[in-house]
């Protein structure tokens, strides 16, 4: 078994393992072990990847494997990773690992819960290792659909409505995607050769200009829906608010990244002319996303809504940076995906813990939590600071790379957009501090809260995993940034070629 396929196989084995367990205890144990292995494997993958590059392998993708699947459609099971995929895999395994520990006390139907959760994650892993658009799409759908049950069954609040809305909107996105994928597929052999779904092969040819212009919006919006692109983001607040903790973590932390990843790996990489020509339109949308999400977050009362809108803003920044189409900004976009993935997962984990204790998510019903549950509160502050871009935490690295990179764009319009987007960091500070101020500081509002217990060991595992990752990236971003930068070269070159 090759190193990459294991990333799909291990979750499947874990799911099978869970089937043989009887109760929560067994299920969570198996999940934790399985996802722990997954985490170790992703570290291993990282080191192997670095070693491979050190050894002078300059191929676009490494560890590639290709097995024919549907011969007549030329569908292959094609896998391979570059630095970006490795980074995303790292992110996923960290978040999933933390997610398992966050749902340590799932009482209702625990086995089913963990199976769905891991099914979701296996879809995400599969997505990141795929080089074939068909398998990529298959894994994409596989990752999206367990959300329905996860939210509908284990969620809270208006969960049925939210779950349905989320599923339908994301499926709407994937409906657009299919059209785009087919469009690319049928133009993947301009000289009459074999049609292909393989991203690398398509990237070697140029799809006719009009075709690009026609299909680009479908692909971009299709992925953009999952990336919470304005105005297709409305599934996000409701969905996150209703989802159980681990699902919010995985969804905001990892699943939304599929959107951004797809945007550049498929839409922009394969349709560079259209990306160059239509970029401005989406740039406006993303700029709106960034500012709008941040403003939207200010007014919210519900912790999860705040974080959901914040995610809209942060994920908007990802696509924003991608559309700047230079190496630095795209580097920043990937960093932002990772950074946002980690910190938003942390946020949702914390919100889950707070909700589990206080049974409310309305910030005005809480207050002074710093005094009663200091560990959680401190981590909340750290997450907040990461979110508002404090140096030394991952958010800063990502945001600054984005802003500097975007500002290098030769066009004034792009630079003005950069300034507008940058202004969101102030608004972010406002809503983060507002929450921190109301929620954690001040006197304890509800006397019942005086007896709350601070974090348990499994919650600490979850939190510490994420905090450590955030801090490591925040302190020493260079290695990660370089892995990503090297891998961006082909994409940026292709985009630049199209621009001329």
């Amino acid at each position, binding site marked *: 078994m090759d190193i990459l396929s294991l990333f799909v196989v291990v979750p499947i084995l874990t799911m099978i393992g869970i089937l043989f367990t009887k109760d929560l205890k067994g299920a969570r144990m198996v999940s934790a072990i399985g996802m722990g292995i997954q985490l170790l494997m992703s570290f291993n993958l990282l080191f192997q990847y670095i070693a491979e590059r050190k050894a002078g392998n300059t191929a676009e993708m490494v560890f590639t494997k290709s097995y024919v*699947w*549907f*011969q*007549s*459609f030329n*569908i292959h099971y094609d896998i391979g990773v570059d630095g970006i995929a490795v980074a995303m895999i790292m992110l996923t395994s960290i978040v999933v690992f933390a997610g398992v520990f966050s749902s340590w006390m799932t009482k209702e139907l625990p086995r089913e819960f963990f199976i769905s959760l891991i099914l979701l994650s296996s879809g995400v892993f599969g997505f990141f290792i795929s080089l074939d658009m*068909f398998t990529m*799409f*298959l*894994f994409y*759908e*596989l990752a999206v*659909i367990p959300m*329905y*049950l996860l939210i*509908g*069954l284990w969620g809270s609040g208006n*969960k*049925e409505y939210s*779950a*349905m809305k989320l*599923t*339908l909107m994301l*499926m*709407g996105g994937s*409906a*657009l995607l*299919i*059209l785009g994928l*087919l*469009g690319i*597929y*049928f133009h993947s052999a301009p000289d009459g050769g074999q049609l292909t779904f393989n991203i690398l092969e398509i990237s070697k040819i140029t799809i006719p200009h009009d075709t690009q212009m026609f299909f680009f919006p479908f692909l971009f919006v299709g992925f953009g829906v999952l990336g919470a692109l304005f105005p297709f983001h409305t599934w996000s607040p409701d969905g996150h608010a209703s989802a159980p903790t681990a699902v919010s973590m995985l969804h905001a932390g990892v699943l939304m990244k599929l959107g951004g990843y797809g945007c550049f790996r498929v839409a922009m990489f394969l349709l560079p002319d259209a990306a160059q020509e239509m970029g401005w339109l989406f740039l406006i949308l993303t700029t709106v996303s960034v500012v709008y999400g941040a403003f939207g977050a200010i007014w919210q009362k519900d912790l999860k809504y705040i974080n959901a809108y914040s995610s809209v803003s942060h994920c908007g920044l990802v696509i924003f940076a991608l559309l700047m189409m230079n190496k630095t900004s795209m580097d920043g976009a990937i960093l932002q995906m990772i950074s946002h993935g980690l910190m938003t997962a942390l946020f949702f984990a914390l919100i889950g813990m707070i909700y589990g204790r206080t049974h409310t998510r309305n910030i005005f019903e809480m207050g002074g939590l710093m005094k009663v549950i200091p560990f959680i509160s401190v981590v909340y502050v750290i997450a907040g600071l990461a979110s508002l871009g404090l140096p030394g935490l991952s958010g800063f690295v990502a945001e600054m790379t984005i802003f500097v990179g975007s500002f290098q764009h030769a066009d004034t319009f792009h630079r003005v957009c950069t300034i507008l987007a940058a202004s969101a960091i102030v608004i972010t500070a406002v809503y983060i501090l507002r929450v921190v101020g109301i929620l954690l500081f001040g006197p304890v509002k509800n006397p019942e809260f005086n007896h709350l217990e601070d974090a348990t060991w499994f919650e600490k595992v979850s939190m510490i995993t994420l905090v450590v990752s955030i801090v490591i990236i925040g302190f020493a971003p260079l290695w990660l940034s370089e892995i990503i930068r090297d891998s961006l070269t082909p994409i940026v070159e292709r985009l630049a070629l199209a621009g001329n």
Partner: protein
Amino acid sequence: MSFESLLLMRHELVLLLAIVLLLIAEIGTNDSQKSIISPLAIILFALHTIVGFLPLQEGSLFGGMFNTTNIVATMKNILNLGVLIILLQSWKWLNATENRVKVSEFYIVLFSTLLGMFYMISAGDFLMFYIGLEIATIPLAALAAFNRHENKSAEAGIKLLLSSALSSGILLYGISMIYGTTGSIYFAEISQSFKGFEPIQVMAMIFFFSGMAFKISLVPFHLWTADVYEGAPVSITSYLSVISKGAAAFVFMIILFTVFKLFTPVWQDMMTAIAILTMTIGNLFALRQNNLKRYLAFSSIAQAGFILLGIISGTATGMATVVYFILIYIFSNLSAFGVVSIISAYTGKDSISDLNGMYKTNPKLSLALTLALFSLAGIPPVAGFFGKFFLFTAAAEKDFYILVLIALLNTIVSLYYYLMPVKAMFINKSESPIAYFKTDKISQLGLAISIIGMVVIGFASPVYEKILSFCFGI
């Protein structure tokens, strides 16, 4: 024509043999011995199915009235598989006391309709086609009215019969016009004689089209579907929705590809409109249903719209995707109907709201139904995803992008209602959920086969490749 060449009719002959044997068994047994009929029928049919898979030569009989090709044989095999599953699934219902006495009728009539379908698929001229069509339709009306003591069943029977009489009348009128303008009823000769877009021939084609659309239940020729599906016994409904529809789609495709080659632009345009109407209206109606059978009826109407996406391309890929999709559709829909029939056989309940909270009591059945619905909705990893994706691919290959887009938008609507039973089973709470019951082994087997098929076929690319190697385009 040697005697051996009759072996080209092997499917039909074996099936006929089975029917005759069943008839003999029926005659030769008294009331207390009737319980052997069912096992006998199933075993005979299983043998027939296995025999069907044996290698077969291509060729034609009776001066081209009867054709056997690999793709035709494949289609028959697919139908056989479906019927076998249906037989297993109807076991419990058939062995209920009130049905004991008419068990052999059920099998004989059912097999006869299948025989009709086989002839229809193999037909090389319109006469054979017509005979097959009627054999496949008229007994079905009798089966729909099988539950003699239910109003709905009788109503379903009469509705099916009268509607089909009207539609076959119109179809026949079309055939007579074709005969009038070309002087032949042989497919090969007719397609040669078409010269251009003669109004009367276009009209004839549309008449023919509508007759077939009736069988596949395409909008606006679909209106009988829901009522008949709801009224007929579950097994018959599932038979109607997969086997009858599948066979009609096969033959429809073959005739369009061979006979009406020349009119391709005409029927493509018509089909575009009908596909859009079918998917949309099917979905819109399905949204509001509570009766499971009726719900699945509208779902199957919408699915028929998707099938058109493959036919419309007119390529070998298109044909292969349609056959492949129908194969998957048979498994998926039969999984769904399997669960529904088990539930209705054991508890008599058949509405979506009855499913509330069922996961807690009957987790396995709930999971089976969920998987089936996911497959129908086209969600991986179950096979429906592959089927649908390939249909879209086939349509996109000929640049029907707008149609594909509309179909894709329809999948969103369809996802909504496919999730409704899932929601009912997993999420909704119920005061009195369907109590736990133990399913008998035969029903389990029927369900298991269809579920395994549904899960495996998507990943099994050789199946598709094999089908494709038999297919032909315009």
